[in-house]
């Protein structure tokens, strides 16, 4: 018998920091780089991803006993695509401007490896409760990562946070921060920082 599967609480907590989808697993890099120029699009993307991830996790866990091994990826993809389309239509109906700003990145949630990896690793093997906890934990971890990158980029690049001015007007806004290179720079520096903190904690105990 292999080691026991993680419990719901372990799944939930792992998703936030120890197995953070962005900082530890480097998954979902496309939205991480593309929509983190400001807080609003970053959090909208995080919410849409959370909806898809939690719904897909629940549904796959419910039907996990019926999955055929060689058809499981097909079922995962169909399920994810359905929830992504629902999220996309909802944004177009109720948050039209945001939907236009995010453009193709909402439909592209289908290709976010974070979701299919959770279907494969957790929800196709564990109970509905564990799959739900896993979905919520991973969603929080993803939101935390997007928000941290967006905070740095929006404050340094536009002098604002959530659209509110936070830096004095004499601050020269760093235009590069809201452009694609800024995404790579901030992601790289924050990854290094998280790694450094983790390393220090590991050696000090």
């Amino acid at each position, binding site marked *: 018998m292999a080691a026991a599967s993680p419990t719901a609480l372990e799944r939930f907590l792992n998703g936030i920091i120890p197995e953070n989808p962005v900082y530890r697993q480097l998954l979902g890099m496309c939205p991480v780089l*593309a929509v983190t120029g400001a807080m609003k699009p970053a959090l909208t993307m995080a919410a849409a991803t959370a909806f898809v991830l939690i719904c897909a996790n629940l549904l796959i866990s419910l*039907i996990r006993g*019926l*999955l*055929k091994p060689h*058809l499981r990826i*097909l*079922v995962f993809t*169909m*399920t994810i*695509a*359905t929830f992504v*389309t*629902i999220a996309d*239509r*909802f944004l*177009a*109906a*109720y948050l*039209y401007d945001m939907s236009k700003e995010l*453009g*193709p*990145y909402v*439909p592209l949630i289908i290709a976010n490896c974070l979701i299919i990896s959770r279907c494969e690793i957790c929800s196709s093997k564990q109970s509905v409760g564990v799959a739900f906890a896993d979905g919520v934990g991973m969603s929080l971890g993803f939101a935390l990562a997007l928000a941290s990158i967006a905070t740095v980029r929006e404050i340094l690049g536009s002098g604002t946070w959530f659209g509110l001015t936070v830096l004095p007007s004499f601050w020269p806004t760093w235009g590069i921060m809201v452009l*694609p290179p800024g995404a790579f720079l901030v992601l790289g520096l924050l990854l290094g920082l998280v790694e450094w903190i983790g390393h220090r904690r590991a050696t000090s105990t």
Partner: protein
Amino acid sequence: MMDPETQKNRNYLQQAWLVLLLGFLYGGALAGVHTSLAPRIAENRLQETLNVIPDLVPGAVIQQTEMLSIAGPGGQMERIYRTADAAGQHNGWVLVAAGQGFADRIEILVGLDPQFTTITGVYVLDQKETPGLGDDIRDAEFLDQFRGKSADIPLSVVKMSPSLPGEVQALTGATVSTWAVCDIVNQAIDQWRDPILDQQVSSASGTSSADEIP
């Protein structure tokens, strides 16, 4: 004893029934979502269209603009906008046109003067072109190229600075998207010129109906 053909078919069904069932269920769910949200999305799009009309036809005022439903070439009713200035003087048209882009359907608004001689503005309503390349078709810098172009000369794409009338400079790395926009504009003008100009001569022909703009 079952014959091998039946055995094979039964085997397929045993393997794939879940995929088939989920396909039907998901399809039904998406149809439901679409039915309930489509009117609201259409409303959002109409509002966006109305907001950009003054930009597409200089001097146009939304309160004076009429929305017309005219039978298109396929027979189905299509929507176009007859714009007017603050004094109520007819000053242009806004066409709604769509076509295949590089990635997906592109939907465009085309502003024209009343006689269909000059393009007064182009706006991209919906697109899913490649981020960073093709989606630059939304940029004002690109779309400003269309302003003032003759509606009598079909638009074409060039890679260098345009030297002839009707030439549009391609976006770097997105020639297909640029061509798509030009083709959609050309087709829209071709499609609507005769029906609209004919209609202006015989305005009481009864094939159009003006709707109140909400």
